[in-house]
């Protein structure tokens, strides 16, 4: 009986896989702005987007790790992407948001200047990262082209990686 069950399960899995690969042709992203540039991350890696609220500073970490905050009982690190990308710090304003991203068990909140929109980009419209910024080290996954603009797509796992 277990053999039968396995067959059924594997069939179901196949179906799911097929669905995913078909949907894969369009990538759903969430776009946001840091400084002058527009960036995006896959929509599924975003746990939530929240308005800024108080955080606690943590000592002995790089400047761009501004601290930790409490999200419904979990203590989550907060990273300022402006500082991480080498820009100056900016006062939080009405448009500032925290994007909480998750990759497996790794989770962190990121401070961004403002959100733009949810994007649907065809996979064929996404080019590779420029040669100067490719490889395992870079946080850039690729460059999305849409109408009149260019959007840098970031690797969430790289953003969530501790590099200090």
């Amino acid at each position: 009986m277990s053999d039968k069950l396995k067959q059924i399960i594997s069939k179901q899995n196949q179906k799911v896989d097929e669905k995913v690969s078909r949907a894969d042709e369009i990538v759903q992203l969430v776009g946001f702005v840091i400084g002058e540039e527009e960036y995006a991350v896959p929509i599924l890696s975003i746990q939530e987007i929240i308005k800024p609220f108080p955080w606690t500073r943590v000592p002995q970490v790089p400047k761009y790790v501004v601290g930790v905050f409490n999200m419904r009982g979990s203590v989550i690190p907060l990273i300022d992407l402006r500082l991480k990308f080498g820009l100056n710090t900016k006062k939080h304003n009405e448009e500032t948001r925290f994007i909480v991203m998750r990759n497996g068990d790794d989770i962190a909140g990121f401070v961004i200047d403002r959100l733009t929109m949810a994007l649907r980009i065809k996979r064929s419209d996404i080019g590779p990262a420029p040669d100067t910024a490719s490889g395992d080290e870079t946080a850039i996954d690729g460059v999305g082209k849409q109408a009149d603009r260019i959007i840098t797509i970031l690797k969430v796992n790289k953003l969530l990686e501790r590099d200090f």
Partner: protein
Amino acid sequence: MDEFQEILQDFLVESFELIEQLDQDLVELENNPEDLELLNRIFRVAHTVKGASSFLNFDVLTHLTHHMEDVLNKARHGDLLITPDIMDVILESIDLMKSLLHIIRDTSSDGGIDVADCVARLDVCSSGGSLSAVSTQDVSMAADEIMEVETVEEPIVEPDYENLSEAEVEAEIERLLKQRQIEDKAKRDAKGSQKTEAASSSESVQNEQPKPVANAPVVAAAKPKPALSKKDEDDDDGDDVRAAAPAKKAQAVEQTIRVDVKRLDHLMNLIGELVLAKNRLIKINDDVEERYEGEEFLEELNQVVSIVSLVTTDLQIAVMKTRMLPIGKVFNKFPRMIRDLSRELNKKIELEIYGEETELDKSIVEEVGDPLVHIIRNSCDHGIEIPEVRMKKGKSETGTIKLKAYNEGNQIVIQIDDDGKGLDPELLKTKSLEKGIITEKEAENMSDKEAFGLIFKPGFSTAAAVTNVSGRGVGMDVVRTNIEKLNGMIDIESQVDVGTSMKLKIPLTLAIIQALLVGVQEEYYAIPLASVLETVRISKDEVYTVEGRSVMRLREEVLALVHIGDIFEVERIMDSSEYAYVVVLGLGTSKLGLIVDTLVGQEEIVIKSLGEFLKGIEGIAGATIRGDGGVTLIVDVVALMDIAKRVKKSAIADSSSDAALAKREKTKASDYAVMIVDDSKTDRVIMRKALEPLGITLVEAGDGQEALNILKQGEHSFDAMLVDIEMPRMDGYTLATEIKKYNRYKNLPLIAVTSRTSKSDRMRGVESGMVEYITKPYSADYLASVVQRNVNFKSEFLR
């Protein structure tokens, strides 16, 4: 998990449990070799393991246990007297059995360990031969034979079955009977606790049942350690009692259930959440009480809050208890260890154990094992003298080591006493000097207690030579590290030639702790209360500087001081007051004074990890969520003490340096910055218009709060502020008072610009630190000149 794995898991759990009790029994047995009940029990362990392992096809294990069984069976029937030599062989075989079980646990097979040698010796024992008479050659020959037998007939579980001796036949009968007993156990029952009853009923059973069974009930009647609490009785005993008292029907069979530790951990996490919510509720309740004082519904709310908090606390304790294990689990292995050590070292040592029923959190029980091993080894090797020396000193030949565990408040104390030669502080200092662990100066200032603490330094050893047992100077360092990891403390007392007493104080649990909340500037930190010895308030002139480090005198001791702000890189923006608070931290044997700005209070906190991204930050053990929803970091006292050594100068804030920083050289008009604080847009525009011609930088704020925030951000360094008095959220007076709290802005000129003209208003202005008082309406020129005067505007910038 497939069926085999499941059975295997059960087998392993059972075997490890059985073995735990075994060591103690064996040592007991050596003292009373005639004790039939003990022998029976030991025999049964070997037997049970054999039975199960043969079923699971662990041939090597079966082979070994089978031969153990032989020897034990002979002893049981009085055919063999257990001498220390035979005991050595039995103990060795049990060690082998343990390692085999470990291998099985890790690899699910029992290869990799050669048991032949041990089996050969077991055979010699069981054939009644004297071990000393057998030359090593014989042993190895015998071993070879067995090896051959093994290789040839590997699949056969019990190779000697063909020539069953009388004893073996008996063993077989015993096994069958035992099997029946196990079958019966499901139907029969007696409450494990009613031992005496069981014993009396066993007498009647004895008369009716065939002889071999009679042994079993008697076992239940007496345990070697009646002090053991009744609930701790191991399954094995329970079975026999049940079998022995058929009158009682099955009820107690399911008294305990095995629960996956993960589930308990999850439960503990949930309780943690609840405790946080409770803290929050209490805080909200306080706020509501303040706001609606005297309202009737308050009482009802109060009641609900106190019930919730009461039940939460009870629930927390109850769940914590499910994770508790008796410390006897750790203590059990020591009788055996002492026995081996005393033989090895040619000393006579007796171990007395008290309080093994004391319970500790599972995770802690696992951690204290190693430290205790090292302490006891140390006591045996360095503490207890050899018998001749003891005789000369007028002590009894046999040295005693006492192992005690008891509760003390929120802590468990494990005390290890020996009546050996004690620690000589002078000798300890000399040795440390030789090894370069301390400097001469340090040695001079050292109290006896601090000198005792030297034994925990890595690399320290008083032993003349490195022996098998100790002398490498590693063990006691392990003790310190492990105990500190548990936020525990070590306390040593010792007297030369009288003995040494070591106390390990360990918190009951790790997940939810009591903490002292302290404040520095605008930040808060939680310090585990277990590491806090006391708090004292000191004034600045009580702090002395010795070799670039701050110290203070605390009663008889000199206490090293460090400011929490220096450790956690807190920006000192606010002026520290005349007094500071010192939190005296104690860990292991070392002490440190931590200077903080404020003491907030004691709170129950739930330790949360900072997650993968921020783990391993030096000085931070984790975080907790406070009643107001904010995150507070928990201080890692162990790391803090290390960091403190590196922090050089840590006096209370030196106010002059910060102030000097603010005055930078001005090279152009826009280097001057003035803040305009007024709630009316029109007024701000008027002021701006008046000052713009000067070309200075102007920053506007709509009220006091905003102005303060701008100051805190520190983007501009302001030379003066124009402050309106009447403002929402925070008025001008309050703002001025707040600003004066900051070191850096102490000398910042504040200019009041207001329509309030009364004398009392002016007085208040002066009191709160305003330097000028401009009344509306004013001329633009007047305002500009006042500002120029106050910022020391250089005339060359004037256009």
